[in-house]
């Protein structure tokens, strides 16, 4: 029987072309209706060094990276060494490796599981049959395509798409190498159905990473000003918007630092243009002062934090969920909102919700994404995007020459219509100073109380308008899991498996983190006797946040957390479910 779920890893040095190969596999499979979740991993070297790519291919939308690797291709064992703790090989997994590599595979592979090793003369074929040593990755592509039953026409199309127009000769050589690899596999490779991925015959899927999805969401939400400073893993947002915003009359500026990036956005938004900036933990730390200004002056602003392992430089290429308290904190009481996407597709929607929230409530809104969501590529259905497009414009005042415009007029919702430059009679003074209704500075503590009340009143509206969360599993389960962000994938798959085992469990994954989406949370908590919060934060930030801010929590409210870097596996979550929902099995 052919398979419908396959996880593949390729490892080599920077010049081996493993990233290109994995990219071709992802694009070809996605164009043929197979869902991919693709992750790249690099050594610390700027150029060269080790690189690896992991592609999980599935007939259904993959929720996680997959716990085990079914097929591994190694160009160089020394390069592979760096990735051994990221590659959990499934017993019986196929391992193809460069024949000419002098190292002994046994030195790099786990001794306790049985594997199917096969040496392949990638280098020799590229050199002798094709005459271009650099094409060995395309030889490998041909070998993999033959063994795993990938759509070969689509793969050749991917090669043509990349080289065909500009470098037809390179395209021809790459195709030749592909065919040579295929021919080798036909003669020497394993021919078993259980290695072959069944075609899905589905619709053409699109491929994007979370940062791109988020940037596209921002474009659709009407963001027309973006300023950012390069930082891993948020930089793809800058790259994508630089390509796309100018066409829509927008502005993208690579700032001299994160302070400039966010303050430029404050200026643009104050002038009436929707603005967004993005960074990661350390850069966000530099932006905190300006967030306070946006809070005090009630200026709409969207700030993206693609979290990485911290504090400080930490591990820039790995995810963590430990910037939550930073996002909550700020200086002074700054009513604001925090949103969190849970996968790549979510990034698109969360970006639009965040921009909408910032515009409607005139406040800074933070999006907490993370490296695993931001930099991984996923295949997605195109029809799920455009139907969700959401644009919200901020309230403009009705101005009249008879009465002076009151920028910060008190209102029940806390929102006062905001004039933008160019509107006659709307001139007012904006400042980071506490102010009266007109905007004039005041040091009256009475006004500070009144204005603090006004600003905080918005949080009620935010919690009502933007309470959205995903709930999975059995509604009536007595055991529940709460998590956020990229943990959703493994949790969701673990729940599906737990249900197959007859276990009752439910999960709650809020996209609005602050203010607490109490309505949906309370609904979820109904009937729960035990709830566990899962997170990649050594200090259990989300758990403590919920304990301090949320209500209706059950007495048995548990935390399961650890430092970031290594994601939770499906199996790990499943074990927790088996342990904690056992009482229900008895019942």
């Amino acid at each position, binding site marked *: 029987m052919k398979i419908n779920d396959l996880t593949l890893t390729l490892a080599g040095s920077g010049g081996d072309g493993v990233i290109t190969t994995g990219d071709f596999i992802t*694009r*070809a499979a996605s*164009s043929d209706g197979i869902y991919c979740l693709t992750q790249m991993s690099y050594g610390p070297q700027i150029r060269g060094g080790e690189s690896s790519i992991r592609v999980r291919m599935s007939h259904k939308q993959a929720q996680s990276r997959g716990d085990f690797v079914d097929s591994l291709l190694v160009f160089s064992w020394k390069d592979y060494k760096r990735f051994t703790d990221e590659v959990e090989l499934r017993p019986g997994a196929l391992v193809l490796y460069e024949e000419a590599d002098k190292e002994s595979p046994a030195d790099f592979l786990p001794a306790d599981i049985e594997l199917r090793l096969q040496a392949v003369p990638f280098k020799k074929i590229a050199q002798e049959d094709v005459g271009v040593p650099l094409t060995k990755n395309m030889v490998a592509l041909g070998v993999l395509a033959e063994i795993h039953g990938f759509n070969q026409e689509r793969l050749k199309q991917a090669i043509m798409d990349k080289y065909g127009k500009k470098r037809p000769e390179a395209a021809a050589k790459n195709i030749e190498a592909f065919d040579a690899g295929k021919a080798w596999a036909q003669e020497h490779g394993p021919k078993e159905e259980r290695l072959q991925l069944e075609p899905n015959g589905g619709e*053409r*899927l*699109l*491929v*994007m990473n979370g940062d*791109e999805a988020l940037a*596209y969401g921002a474009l*659709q939400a009407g963001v027309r*000003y973006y*300023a950012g400073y390069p930082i891993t893993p948020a930089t793809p947002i800058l790259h994508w918007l630089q*390509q*796309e915003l*100018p*066409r*829509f*009359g927008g*502005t993208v*500026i690579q*700032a*001299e630092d994160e*302070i*400039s*990036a966010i*303050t*430029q*956005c*404050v*200026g*643009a938004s*104050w*002038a*009436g*243009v929707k603005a967004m900036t993005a960074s990661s933990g350390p850069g966000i730390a530099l932006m905190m*002062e*300006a967030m306070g*200004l946006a809070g005090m*002056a009630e200026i709409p602003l969207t700030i993206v934090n693609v979290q990485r392992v911290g504090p400080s430089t930490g591990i820039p290429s790995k995810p963590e969920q430990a910037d939550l308290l930073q996002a909550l904190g700020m200086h002074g009481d700054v009513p604001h909102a925090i949103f969190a996407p849970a996968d790549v597709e979510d990034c698109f929607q969360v970006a639009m919700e965040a921009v909408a929230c910032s515009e409607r409530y005139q406040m800074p809104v933070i999006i907490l994404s993370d490296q695993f969501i931001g930099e991984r590529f996923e295949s997605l259905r*195109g029809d799920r*995007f*455009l139907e969700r*497009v959401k644009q919200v414009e901020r309230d403009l005042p009705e101005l009249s020459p008879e009465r002076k415009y009151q920028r910060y007029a008190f209102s029940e919702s806390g929102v006062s219509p905001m*004039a*933008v*430059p*160019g*509107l*006659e009679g*709307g*001139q*007012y*003074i*904006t*400042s*980071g*100073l506490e102010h009266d209704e007109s905007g*004039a*500075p005041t040091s009256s503590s009475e006004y500070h109380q009144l204005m603090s009340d006004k600003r905080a009143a918005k949080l009620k509206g935010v919690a009502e308008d933007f309470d959205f969360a995903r709930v999975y599993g059995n509604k009536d389960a007595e055991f529940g899991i709460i998590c956020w962000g990229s943990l959703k994938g493994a949790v969701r798959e673990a729940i599906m498996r737990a249900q197959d085992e007859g276990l009752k469990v439910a999960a709650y994954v809020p996209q609005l983190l602050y203010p607490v989406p109490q309505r949906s949370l309370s609904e979820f908590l109904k009937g729960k006797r035990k709830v566990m919060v899962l997170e990649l934060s050594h200090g259990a930030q989300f758990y403590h946040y919920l304990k301090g801010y949320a209500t209706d929590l059950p007495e048995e409210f548990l935390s399961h957390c650890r430092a970031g870097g290594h994601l939770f596996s499906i199996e790990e979550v499943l074990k927790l479910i088996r342990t904690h929902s056992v009482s229900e099995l008895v019942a």
Partner: protein
Amino acid sequence: MAEKVLTAKDYRTDVQNIWCPGCGDFGVLNAIHQAVAELQIPPQDLAVISGIGCSSRLPGYVNAYGFNTIHGRALPIATGVSASRPDLRVLVAGGDGDAYAIGAGHFVHALRRNPNLTYIVMDNSVYGLTKGQGSPTTPVGDPTKSQPFGHSERPLNPLAWALALEVTFLAQAFSGQVKQLKDLIVKGMRHEGFALINVKSPCVTFRGNQEYNYYREHGWNIDKDGHDYHDREAAFRITQEKERVPFGLIWQDENAVSLGKQLELEREKYSKVRQYDNADEVLRTFFA
């Protein structure tokens, strides 16, 4: 009906002024009121942006869209305003601490980008709002609250610095000579790009009342003295002047491309390779 002719009075506000009697910033404020009236800028099309400091309270005193922002960040905020709304006239105001200390990093890059705005730095060589600490332009030896035995760090030379960074409009003025200052503001606001006007604006509270006399005695009107503001070498010599204090237009480069212009060119370039009718069509670029 004929358009109403705007006068300096139309740009005043009723926000309570917190400056000390005798503060040089009053002269700057007057010059701004007169300059924007001369230019007949409708108040709603004028954005006045500042950082933090005594002088940064200025936006509250101008009938315009005013923004008294945070310390040192007036320039990037104004860059955001200018780049996103090229239809507005942008005036930036602040002090020497705001511009040359905490905001120094942004100052450098604002000059490099050349956004279309006029930056008036009220240089009083002291931190007034925090009551008398030394600033980046305090002369060596001057006692301050933070250096009671005399300021030990050398002052920086904002004129030479800006000129070296290829500022496209550079002037210096004295708040005690409102007419010349007003003329320079008008010229600066007509300049397409970044105009820096460093204004010697005495702080009578923390630096005594002798500075007005000093600038009157040592002032050197380079406008009247026939300085050619297109002569870069002469401009550099002026920035190195030790005996006299130069007042007037030091340097102007009308040919430099402003940020606004650059962004327009960029939009044209990208529009050629990104031929969509709307944002929905961008989705197709993601299809595998």
